[in-house]
């Protein structure tokens, strides 16, 4: 790999931002291609305003790309060096937490708030804990705090806030 290309790739975050912005601009134009053209006297075309914003975003993204290329070609230190390399265990924590949180709406629908809430709370506590210091006792302590927090929130939202939290469709009669 040539040194110039290596320097350009070091600005990956600006390149990613600029290219994502341009992709979003194109996506906005594509998604709004069939929007009706209505004269201003009747309220104006509904697609024009988002398309103007998309053009602005596209121009700003091009400027970010231009800046990144200029900085890398002139050997200037961009913002890439300020990005911290994440330790592997942090990556695992974030991946696991994201997976659970993405599953949580489905679990909420199926298992109801009490079970899902306890799972989410406990799992997030485990993700945020120092794994080397975890013992069975501390996990049991976390589980009881998670359940306590869930019941407290259920009381706060249902009895005080007047909201009905999901009871779960997978369990018979929505017992939870």
């Amino acid at each position, binding site marked *: 790999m040539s040194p110039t290309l290596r320097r350009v790739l070091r600005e990956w*975050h600006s390149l*990613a*931002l600029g290219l994502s*912005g341009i992709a*979003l601009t194109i996506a*906005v134009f594509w*998604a*709004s291609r069939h*929007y009706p053209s*209505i004269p*201003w006297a009747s*309220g*104006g075309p*509904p*697609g024009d*305003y*988002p398309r103007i*914003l998309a053009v*602005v*975003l596209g121009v*700003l*993204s091009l*400027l*970010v790309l231009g800046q990144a290329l200029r900085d890398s070609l002139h050997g200037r230190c961009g*913002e890439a060096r300020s*990005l911290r390399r*994440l330790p592997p265990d*942090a990556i695992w*924590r*974030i991946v696991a*937490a*994201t997976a659970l*949180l*993405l599953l*949580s*709406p489905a679990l*909420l*629908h199926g298992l109801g708030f009490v079970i*899902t*809430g306890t799972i*989410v*709370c406990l*799992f*997030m*506590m485990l*993700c*945020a*804990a*120092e794994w080397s210091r975890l013992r069975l006792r501390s996990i049991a302590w976390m589980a009881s705090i*998670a359940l306590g*927090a869930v019941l407290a*929130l259920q009381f*706060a*939202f249902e009895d005080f*806030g*007047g*909201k*009905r*939290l*999901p009871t779960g469709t997978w369990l018979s009669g929505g017992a939870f």
Partner: protein
Amino acid sequence: MEYLSNLGELYLSGAGQVFTPRALLLILAGTLLGIVFGALPGLSSTMALALFTPLTFAMSPAEAIVFLIALYISSVYAGAVAAILVNIPGTPSSIATSFDGYPLSQRGEAGRAIGVATVASVIGGAIGLVVLMVGSPLLAQMARRIGSWEYAILALLALTLISYVSPGTMLRGLIAGTLGLLIATIGSDLILGYPRFTFGTSELVGGLDVVVLMIGLFGFAEVFSELENTARPSVKQRVHGVARSVRETFTHTKTIVRSSLIGVGIGVLPGAGGSIASIAAYGVSLRTSRKPQEYGKGSTEGLSAAESSNNASVGGALVPMMTLGIPGDPMTAVLIGALMIHGLAPGPQLYANNPAFVSAIFLGYLVALVFMLIVGLLAARPYARLVSFPRPYVMGVIALLCVVGSYSIQNSIFDVWVAVAAGFAGYLLKKVHIYPAPIVLGVVLGPLLEHNLRRALFLGDGSIMPFFTRPISLLLILTIILLLFSSQIGQRLRRRDAGSRA
């Protein structure tokens, strides 16, 4: 205007809404919760407001807003606790607090520092409230004369300002703001009701709820960020002698008043919140102090300047929110969302149609300040322990609050997906130096900008000329241009200066 002509009657009516046992209990609860969120590093005022807004559904509008305002001001204040004890600002507004608060704490005077910070915060908050009470009705009266042209440009100015002061480069701030404006276009078109970017999904027809987005961007995103680091701060200092420092604070009255006015002035500007206010006030105080050599080494004068200004900025931030419907910071953006949930639209019409509600907000703010003072002075020791509370427990409960909060806004499972997706996107965007505040303000200002822009074009039969022929609109456009090119103009002037010196 009814608000100004019947002040006494309106305040009596407002007092009837605030001085009830239920409302007072809610203000106390808001104060305590705010202190918890402010004192815990990593949790912010915005997160507190976004997470607790869904709890306000069963409250009356006045109760809901005073509860949220109590939460807001006490969380801004309590950010000082972590800044003083462990040198980690509990909220961004407390950055300047740590400059002198932490050295005091290292000298074994944490209690003194917390006492000074508490009293200075309350005085700053009170000055902010006075400006809000006096200035906002007048501004609301003036705002009624503003047309769609000015409103559209005002929304653009607000976005430019927040991009200007947001962390990272202005270019990235502008990208974030534009992204927010684009997110706001999802759902039915404001004028014709035509569905945009819904991709055939019925859940998207109503658009994305701003509070749900904020739970994602400020709640889930923060949880992801916290997972990167499992180390937690430890508190070694003893907290004692808090109440004894009350009298000492009054020796800095001049500094506190000046800093509070700076705080209010900066708070009024969209995007420029407590963090900028406290740093600016600290800088001015340092330059005008008789003992500048003590700054950074534990000066209670510097601490008073920082704390009074960041709390005064809250009152300032509420001025454009209540009078124009334009949020000064992400926290007031949540308050706008909360007002809308309760069927109230901020802006000049709020003063005309609900004057008693406005006075209830002011009185609630005052009561919250009194509670903040009492709790801050009497309960400093127990809540100082919060700073070293185990992070895993906090993160677990915050994630749970995010799930239940995003669901309960509209009883929608889909909203939980939206919040999680927004949280993960917000976390990734922070990695490329795109911060959530301009995105959120873009989402809040989007409908205001689009509605007024299209209305202005409709009234002008498609012509953009009125934007340039109306004096206020033209002045605002010139301000935007000046802000956009200020760094280039500054650079050119510096180069010319250097050239002429050579």
